[in-house]
């Protein structure tokens, strides 16, 4: 058997000496980048520009006035209050659920995970509706609540509960895969060294998951602040009392008070930016940690 080693023969025609097609042609590449950037420009960038342009349409003075309105301030206060209550509660739930699901084996785990994911997969309107059905005047507990003069629907507690529902999965969804990957070895090690359950949780588990936890908190917070559909159903749009910032925007817009609506919207947009920046930082950090651990 004679060997034929591949070689470059200068006498071969030009076509045979073409480089390997390992990437698209320059023309194709330019076209794709243009299409992608054009698409993003149209769909992402333009709306952003519009928010700020419209907010400042009537000038900076009008902008501050719109934000300084007592009803606007009340909306801001309510939004922040909601986030302040909802995020810690869902964080505790997320940690508890992730602990139960990832540290133990038991029947029905999959069902539990599905239930935790449920608020994520239903429309937010349904998220609000179920509480109207439960606490509303004609709801299951309606008469009882009315008799005791407790107001949930069309009052602040309803807003908070509805937001609690839609943001419930966020922290848990971040923690569950993370803790599953980490396994139970660290906890076992701590327990073998004499730590109690709580000591293990605070000194070993939580530090181990801190970046995932932060990320989950960030997502939960972002959604809590921006939630519209569920809150719209339960709040009754009582301006100054039960309108969160998104709802207040709706009220302003429907009153043709465009500049004010966009002024408030710009605040939310800035908060969204902050969320994105923090997320990027956390992701960058996580990538760096991953690269460093790979060295060993």
């Amino acid at each position: 058997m004679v060997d034929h080693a591949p070689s470059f023969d200068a006498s071969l025609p030009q076509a045979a000496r073409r480089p390997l097609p390992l990437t698209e042609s320059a023309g194709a590449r330019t076209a794709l980048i243009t299409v992608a950037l054009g698409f993003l420009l149209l769909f992402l960038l333009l709306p952003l520009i519009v928010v700020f342009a419209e907010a400042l349409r009537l000038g900076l003075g009008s902008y501050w006035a719109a934000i300084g309105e007592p009803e606007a301030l009340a909306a801001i206060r309510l939004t922040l209050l909601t986030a302040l209550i909802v995020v810690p509660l869902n964080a505790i739930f997320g940690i508890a659920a992730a602990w139960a699901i990832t540290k133990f084996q038991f029947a029905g785990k999959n069902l539990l995970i599905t239930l935790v994911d449920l608020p994520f997969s239903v429309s937010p309107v349904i998220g609000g509706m179920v509480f109207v059905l439960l606490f509303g005047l004609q709801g299951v507990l309606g008469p009882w609540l009315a008799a005791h003069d407790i107001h949930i629907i069309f009052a602040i507690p309803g807003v908070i509960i509805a937001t609690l529902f839609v943001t419930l999965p966020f922290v848990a969804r971040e923690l569950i895969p993370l803790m599953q990957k980490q396994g139970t070895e660290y906890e076992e090690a701590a327990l073998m060294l004499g730590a109690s359950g709580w000591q293990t949780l605070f000194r070993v588990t939580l530090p181990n998951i801190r970046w995932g936890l932060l990320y989950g908190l960030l997502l939960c917070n972002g959604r809590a602040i921006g939630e519209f559909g569920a809150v719209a159903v339960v709040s009754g749009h009582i301006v100054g009392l039960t309108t969160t910032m998104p709802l207040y925007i709706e009220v302003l817009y429907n009153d043709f008070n465009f500049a004010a609506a966009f002024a408030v919207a710009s605040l939310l947009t800035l908060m969204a930016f902050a969320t994105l920046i923090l997320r990027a930082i956390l992701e960058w950090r996580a990538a760096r940690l991953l690269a460093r651990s790979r060295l060993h």
Partner: protein
Amino acid sequence: MIGGAIAIRQRSIVPGFGLSLGVTLSYLGLIVIIPLCVLLLKTSDAGWAKIWMELSSLRTLAAFRVSFGVAFLAAAFNTVFGCIVAWVLVRYQFFGRRLIDAMIDLPFALPTAVAGISLTQIYAGNGWLGAALATAGIKVAFTPLGILVALAFVGLPFVVRTVQPVLQDFDRETEEAGALLGASRWNILRRVVFPPLVPAVMTGFTLAFARGIGEYGSVIFIAGNMPGYSEIVPLLIVIKLEQFDYAGATVIASLMLVASFILLLAINLLQAWTRRQQGG
């Protein structure tokens, strides 16, 4: 200990099963399970007559057509452009790539109401783009086309973010092997690169589709909400609630859940079949 009694589980040295499961189930029970049970209860209360009435109402049928139809189209639209964006972000280097990559998540982070009013402002008859389009005879706001635009916005990140990691982990050596075997670039793309991406693309499509069906905040501003034309199912539910027609609202909500469930199941099965075709 509660844990050992109620759940069938393997014993473990790690403590806190009872407490963590207890907290989890109580919280879920109060916030998710009981409310959803109420939904089921009210639906069954409504009775078959009511269900049939809603099902045959033209308004309801139109709303379902709009919601599901436009969501499907928007998801398809996002699939095409999302794939292009994912490809460009992973494969090419260009100025501002990192920044743009971070911005992809904007529709996730931006409140839907903000997106809603902003998009309306752009595509209304006298809007930033709407004016130009109007002269060409194209009306976007207050039509199903407007709904499409809104759903395209909120669904934008889904396909990109599901395809990106798969593309990033893609083994370039298979492409090199294809090239060495004499395939043209297009053939390599078509036969070697795209097939493994199909499951991820389908997942992204499904997520965008599911999101689009239930979307409310970003749609109601731009849609115009004309019954039978540009009214979406979530809005119909809200209207029924405002009219205190709880039974009607629950029936429509349940129908929506069932229809979504069936569709998602179908897509999942299709996905599983595709994966099997590719050899798992």
